């Protein structure tokens, strides 16, 4: 099993051989694959744990309207019933009681199938108190050995979080346990109102050298906290 702290969040439509070669160099602990099921076993062969994501899990697609069991089974079938692939559940759907209930049902289906899921993948800067409203779901995932996903975007110098909620989820981890993973990590621009801009990544804002320096800080910081991360994003 690889142990490199920085993995990749891989977009669909990439060259499979290029991704596999990148992984043989990088040897990351965990990477996330979008839609391209053929890449999953290729990366697993290199010793990387793979989170498997299929389009349709974000608020625009209202995944909570789907049967959670069917949602899980469709993704499991789409990845060729690969039991080592971790099924990515919802993406940035936000905390709600309905989401909690849906996630518990999805976890139950995963348990029936003998597979793991990565739950929640909440948007960056989700406050500690919001995470803790779902503490019972987080504990259920932890007890089932299922990872819990969080997104982290930052602007300025990493970790740039001392006075905000960027890493509020680490305090949640101390309360509920479990394996956590940053399923999206990236440098983002700021809009005029001071909020992070989800449409503007590092390109055009900082140089490759500056971003590399920032990622070095992030790698050390997450290794210290024992959290693997998936760098957003890989592939054009």
């Amino acid at each position: 099993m690889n142990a490199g702290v920085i993995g990749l969040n891989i977009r669909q439509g990439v060259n499979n051989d290029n991704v596999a070669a990148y992984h043989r160099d990088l040897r990351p602990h965990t990477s996330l694959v979008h839609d391209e099921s053929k890449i999953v076993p290729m990366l697993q062969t290199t010793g990387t744990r793979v989170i498997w994501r299929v389009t349709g899990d974000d608020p625009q697609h209202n995944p909570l309207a789907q049967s959670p069991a069917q949602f899980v089974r469709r993704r499991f079938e789409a990845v060729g019933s690969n039991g080592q692939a971790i099924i990515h559940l919802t993406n940035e759907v936000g905390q709600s009681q309905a989401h909690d209930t849906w996630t518990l049902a999805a976890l139950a289906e995963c348990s029936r199938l003998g597979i793991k899921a990565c739950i929640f993948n909440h948007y960056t800067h989700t406050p500690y108190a919001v995470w803790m409203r779902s503490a019972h779901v987080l504990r259920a995932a932890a007890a089932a050995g299922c990872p819990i996903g969080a997104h982290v975007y930052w602007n300025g110098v990493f970790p740039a979080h001392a006075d905000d909620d960027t890493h509020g989820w680490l305090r949640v981890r101390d309360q509920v346990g479990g394996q956590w993973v940053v399923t999206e990590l990236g440098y983002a621009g700021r809009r005029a109102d001071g909020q992070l801009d989800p449409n503007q990544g590092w390109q055009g804002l900082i140089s490759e050298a500056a971003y590399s320096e920032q990622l070095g800080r992030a790698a050390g910081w997450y290794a210290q906290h024992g959290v693997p991360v998936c760098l957003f994003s890989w592939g054009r």
Partner: protein
Amino acid sequence: MMWLTFDVSESAPIREALVRFNIAYRIRERPNVVVRPTNAVNPRKAKALAARNMRAEATTAAAVVVVVQPDSEVTLYDLNPPAQANGYTWLFVELGTQYAGYVVEALGDAKSFEALPVEPPPEAVYSVWLTDDEIRQSAQLHTIVAQAEAERMAASQKIKEAHLQLAAILTNALERARPTVLNTITS
């Protein structure tokens, strides 16, 4: 295509940096097993009555190792002197061979565990050569030896971790020292 400006796939300097970082910075599994303290006494089998957090230390501020599920069979130990923090009395608990840590004895009136009936040993300890007191003393000496062994194993673990860290530093240095291979220019 908002995500395009986040892409790192075509940056050779970033790729080179990530490879270096992943050699230097590695995920270490969080310890599931807390070494049994030397003041853990009176081991006994028990069943969990409710879901309880198992923590790395006897305080609610410590990290959760695992959630002990209802009906799980565990081995309980009292702590001598008793560990009391945050208004709770804490027990040392082993859950199979995979997890160990501290769990509160009760939450309010709700006890965390119920003792399981003790099965009589197949053969009682008996010797025509030793008195009961001598057998008790022998058992105590065995306990002392077992505790010393546990401390030795903990020290070995620290040495192992230090070696791994040194290996990572040396590997990193080796990577930095590797000469850059330039592509052949053909025209």
